[in-house]
């Protein structure tokens, strides 16, 4: 698939710029996958779920096993997403709920789930290591990862990059529709912001919250299966992505999925451009600086509708 552009003959500087833009898009899309999952959990349960890194990698290992058996990436993708939903629901029902019951007031309300999800992350990763071993595995991408040829030069954008972007856009649209236009979505939002009032309205807050975790888990499953083919599969494979996804989500405001994707793109562009044009050592400092700059201007993130409602 060759797209025709009316471009002048490319020099080295132009190549560098175009490559930077394209790789920023790809990086941003990857961060967006995780940012979406984080925002989903936050919107439906007001918890930062660090175990997401473990859940997503676990579902990817499940997908890997499916590929070993069936040879099909797409079947594996479906299985990963479904198992992500199940695992997410199970974690909420049998793990987070007891914790919420015991912890009712004080700053510990915010912290206990964080620490609990950290502990859960460790357990999941240990289990993975035990079941599948700790050596690197890899998953083959389902479509070509070769770059497109434009006017004789191969650019750093492939069918696979396009696939990831498409999935991100579709996921964002579908989920936004779910939250904004459906009754279930309304219930999800209501249970998160005002559990007492939601209960009074007859919403089964606990079940709705579990649903929220299920959706987030499914999203994480999607993230893992799309992320891993470019990298390697091992128990800690998604730790870095979780951190960057979280930062992206915060930049975007934690309120909307559009914000999550936008935040991720901003982060991706910033990191790629600063490491390409200034110094490769600025990978992490760039993330921090972007985040700080955004929060200084808008303490609740770029696309937060209003000021924070007070957790």
């Amino acid at each position, binding site marked *: 698939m060759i797209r025709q552009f009316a471009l002048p003959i490319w020099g080295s500087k132009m190549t560098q710029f175009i490559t930077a833009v394209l790789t920023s898009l790809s990086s941003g899309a990857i961060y967006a996958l995780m940012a979406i999952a984080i925002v989903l959990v*936050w919107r439906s349960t007001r918890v*930062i779920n660090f175990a997401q890194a473990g859940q997503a990698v676990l579902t990817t290992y499940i997908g890997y096993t499916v590929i070993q058996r069936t040879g099909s990436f797409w079947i594996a993708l479906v299985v990963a997403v479904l198992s992500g939903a199940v695992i997410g629901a199970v974690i909420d029902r049998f793990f987070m709920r*007891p*914790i919420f019951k*015991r*912890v009712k007031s*004080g*700053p*510990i309300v*915010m*912290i*206990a789930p*964080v*620490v*609990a999800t*950290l*502990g*859960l*992350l*460790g*357990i999941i*990763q*240990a*289990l993975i*290591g*035990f079941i599948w*071993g*700790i050596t690197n595995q890899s998953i083959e991408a389902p479509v070509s990862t070769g770059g497109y040829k434009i006017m004789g030069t191969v650019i750093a954008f492939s069918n696979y990059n396009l696939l990831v972007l498409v999935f991100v856009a579709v996921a964002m649209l579908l989920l936004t529709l779910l939250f904004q236009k459906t009754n279930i979505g309304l219930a999800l939002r209501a249970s998160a912001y005002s559990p007492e009032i939601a209960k009074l309205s007859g919403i089964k807050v606990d079940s709705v919250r579990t649903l929220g975790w299920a959706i987030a888990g499914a999203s994480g499953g999607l993230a893992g299966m799309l992320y891993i083919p470019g990298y390697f599969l091992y*128990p800690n494979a998604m730790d870095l992505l979780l*951190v960057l996804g*979280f*930062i992206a*989500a*915060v930049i975007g405001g*934690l309120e909307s999925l559009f914000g999550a994707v936008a935040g991720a793109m901003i982060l991706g562009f910033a990191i790629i451009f600063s490491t390409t044009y200034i*110094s490769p*050592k*600025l*990978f*992490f*400092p*760039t*993330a*921090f600086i972007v*985040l*700080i700059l955004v*929060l*200084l201007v808008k*303490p*609740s*993130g770029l696309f937060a509708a209003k000021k*924070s409602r*007070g*957790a």
Partner: protein
Amino acid sequence: MKKADKVRKPITTRKRLFLFVLFGWLLLILGDRVGDLELYQGSFVATYALGITSVILLTGYSGQLSLGQSALMAVGAYAGALSIFNAGWHPVIGLIMSALVAGVFGLVLGLVAARLSGPYLAGTTLALAISLPTLANQFPILGAEEGIVFDVGLPPARFGEEFSQYKWFFWISALAALIMVFFIVNLLSSRYGRTFKAVRDNPVAAQLAGINVGRLKVNAFAISSGVAGLSGGLLVMLISGVSPSAFPLSLSFSLLGAAVVTGLYSLKGVILGGLVLVAIPEIADSLVSRIGGSESFTTVLPGFIVSALLILAVVFTPNGPGHLLKKHH
């Protein structure tokens, strides 16, 4: 209770001082009785206890969830190392610089953080934790991955031949930790310290009562960072040098976890928290070598045990084990 407290205050401080000195004396005597390994581990206990103190101050007492303690420890560590190695100052000055520089840094950070809440603060401190240590690669004076030597020197000759380097480490870290914790405990027991609790329990009421909540939070950040900085300085003393990898993100998580396990709302459990951080991996390791098993099993088991314990602690004692003993909150 309130009236009696006011009358008791001067006595309380003196009594506390006496207790701390007594405890310090006990530790030093103990130091003579144990081997180098225990002294080495004990130094880490003291260092971690200090780190946990900083977490409790910031999160337990002023309600700000920060994942960036490791970054603040790094600031203190580098400040100390630069003072001793590059500026040639005395190690004690070096450690003081660790606390001071980190405290100033925390002050600035606190000013920024005051406007942020909940996950936004968490995200910012998380980003700080992963990016600050990598700055060492950017500026050659910070020595990149090899880092800077942190050398507190040999024990003074007058202590004799038998006084090992590890005992010296233990003396320095235990004493530094004791002194710092003493200051903090005093601070928290004072009238000023009580405002912390007021803000944490009910910020709106506190504000109505005239307490400047914003300023308090910033101060808490600064003080907590100073404590963390000292802890960082002690940590790199123990490994004889500072480098970025001494302060990974997981250190922040470990301190937070230990703080939750031993009680986020009071300083009573910090020593226990330090012990937990040192002892649990050791116990996990020896358990693993006793059980044996396949290669994957033995490699993942220690991590599993640590995580499981963390979860158990959060589920069963989210407010710290002290609350299991007390009858009321």
